[in-house]
């Protein structure tokens, strides 16, 4: 048996942004597509407004944890959180990040500084071929509810050339994992996210 490399996904955000939900949608879609998938999530204390990381590997791997400089896809729901994911970013990592900052209380207390996002972009662009910022909150509001910002980012991921899952499987998985009453709005957010990615990645 020859070893086939897994597709590695790293999702980072702040507690309450829907990182676990997004990853679960991806995972169940992968299973429906007949692929093996493993996922790692964070619960408990880390959720109270702290950083939340969720990781997936789609393929033959037993462990869901991304390897150093090896992520295929990095989704950042908050831009400064990209700085906490630098160890898994490689030249081939496709990065999709939301532009909307969430300023932690440590900044208002003056014990920590919020970084200059332009500086992050400048630095990352030198090393990574694919880096895309998306105004996910604005698009989500247009779709119907700011809460769907994570689905906008998922839509952008879906539009990347190497994403291994089909749109119909993602939508079916969304139906299983999101409230029925908001499903149309979420599908709209997904599609708008895909469209936005195609626009910005040109």
């Amino acid at each position, binding site marked *: 048996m020859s070893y086939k490399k897994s597709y590695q996904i790293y999702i980072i955000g702040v507690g309450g942004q829907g990182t676990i939900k997004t990853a679960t949608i991806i995972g169940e879609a992968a299973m429906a597509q007949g692929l093996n998938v*493993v996922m790692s999530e964070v619960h408990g204390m880390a959720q109270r407004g702290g950083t939340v990381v969720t990781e997936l590997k789609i393929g033959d791997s037993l462990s869901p944890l991304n390897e150093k400089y090896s992520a295929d896809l990095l989704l950042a729901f908050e831009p400064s959180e990209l700085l906490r994911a630098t160890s898994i970013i490689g030249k081939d990592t496709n990065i999709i990040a939301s532009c909307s900052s969430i300023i932690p*209380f440590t900044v208002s207390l003056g014990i920590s500084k919020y970084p200059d996002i332009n500086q992050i972009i400048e630095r990352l662009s030198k090393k990574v071929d694919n880096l895309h910022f998306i105004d996910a909150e604005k698009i989500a509001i247009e779709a119907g509810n700011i809460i769907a910002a994570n689905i906008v980012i998922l839509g952008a991921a879906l539009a990347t050339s190497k994403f291994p899952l089909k749109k119909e499987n993602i939508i079916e998985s969304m139906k299983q994992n999101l409230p029925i009453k908001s499903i149309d709005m979420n599908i709209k957010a997904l599609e708008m996210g895909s469209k936005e990615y195609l626009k910005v990645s040109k």
Partner: protein
Amino acid sequence: MKLQDIYEKKEGEKLFLLGNEAAVRGVLEAGISFTSTYPGTPSSEIGNVLAKIAGEAGVYFEFSVNEKVALEVSAAAAASGLRSFVFMKHVGLNVAADAFMSTAYTGVRGGMIILSADDPSMHSSQNEQDNRLMAQLAGVPVLEPSNPQEMKDFMVYGINTSEQYKIPVMMRTTTRVSHMRGIVELGPIKPGEKEGFFKKEEPGFTIAPAYARKMRQELVKKLNQLEITGNNSPLNRIVRESKKNRVGIITSGVSYNYVLDTVNKYSLPVNILKLGLCYPFPRELMKNFITNLDDIIVVEEVEPFLEKEVLSIIGQEGWQKKVYGKLDRTLPHIYEYNPDIVEQSLTQVLKMGVPEKNPEIDFTDITPPMRPPVLCPGCPHRSTIYGIKKAVQSLKIKKENIIYSNDIGCYTLAMQPPYYMADYCICMGSSIGIASGMSKATKQKIIALIGDSTFFHAGIPPLINAVHQKADIMVVILDNRVTAMTGGQPNPGILTDIGGEKGMVVSIEELSKAAGAGYVKTIDPGDLDNSVKTFKEGLQYEGVSVIISRSPCVVFVKPEKERLTYQINQEKCTRCLICLRQFNCPALYQREDGSIDINYLLCTDCGYCVQVCPQKAIEVKK
């Protein structure tokens, strides 16, 4: 996936399950009919799922008052012939240790599984103790699953083993297994016995010395038999073997995943032994595995548990072999492993050149902002601790003369700036015991902070102690009507409804009075002036004062009445920043122009900040 799928889906179907959810399916497939816990991360979701489905799935489930009681009720069920399952986080087993050690001696009749969810790297714990050592200390067999599928399958294997040998079995998971999601193929559901019957017979379950000596003999006999079982168990298997290979890896739990991924990735020439029933050590199997090897690498998380046994076998046989692991520093002795750590260690031992990875992007000069967990916007605890601070300030007690003895719960977060209200906090219930001792050891003022669930769990005996020893302390019970930090579980202070059965409500006020506290008052933290006044009285009271600050958790309890929306009156606001820098609600922020505003995405309309503003600049929105 819907939660009902866990008991509705049939044999052969597949679900994408969290390790903890897979354990619940395992309960149903193992014919277990009695389950109990005290919530603790990383085991909490097992209870959250059981609380929702136990009734329909025909299983008894309770959130017990603490882990010791949880273990005792499940032991009682197993002694009555039912199959039982008790689960907790690793440090929960410390609370349950007394009952745990003795249950190994008495044994069980129905099968019993004790799940310990260890937390290497301390994602949400105070230590990273390896409870395989606790099991060895007690003489309890240990199962170590590597993924959700095994978490389910090992429940079935474990319950049968437990029942066959009349001994409780430990399932040791770690955070990365409990919180790993993977595809699980389901087996058939086996309905459990509905009603147990406790048969009276000698020596029964009374562990007096004369009986205990016999039980000790029995226990060692059981463990010797289980060692033979382990040598042939399907849970202990040689995953790869070639006569040509001179290097072998022995591994268990989550480490196995990293080992196999690395071995596959680089086609490493190694033999692999995976241990799922790792204690009693399957010594014959381990001996046969290593007999033809020159080098053995042991990969396991936290303590060198298997590694020391490998060394003991080699020593007994008088062999010359090299063992790589934690003891020779090939692998780290602290924190959890990951693919990179294991890859680096394996390739180093095998002297393999690994293709160099992309150089790291240099980010040393830009750092992310610190983002520690915080009390939620609208959390009543914030108002309680703010009120305490105000009372202390108004009594002009010097900073160095006030000691905050904190406890385990969301309010532990008061340790952070700007509050700095946790000088001491070591374990569940310790706030009152430590306060009691501090009051005897020093002349300083001592405030104990403890939550409702933690008070019920381990706060009552130390409160009795403090009263009896005439300690001079103020105990603040932050009663948010739920066990919040672990995800919103009930506790004896509130009406519960699990499996269709309503529980009785136990009063914190009555308990405190019955314990002998001389000053007992209940406040609403939403009324700041009254809170400050009451805290001042409590602090000035000579003896044990208990103040119950009661207001429901903003996340897990729905507000009863409709709330008003607030706004900042920019004309009144002097930008004193008290709301930001002292009260510190995450829903308040400073704009670039220096003005203060409310982030309505986060704001819960609690209105606590209104009383904090000295200018009365936070007003009802018109």
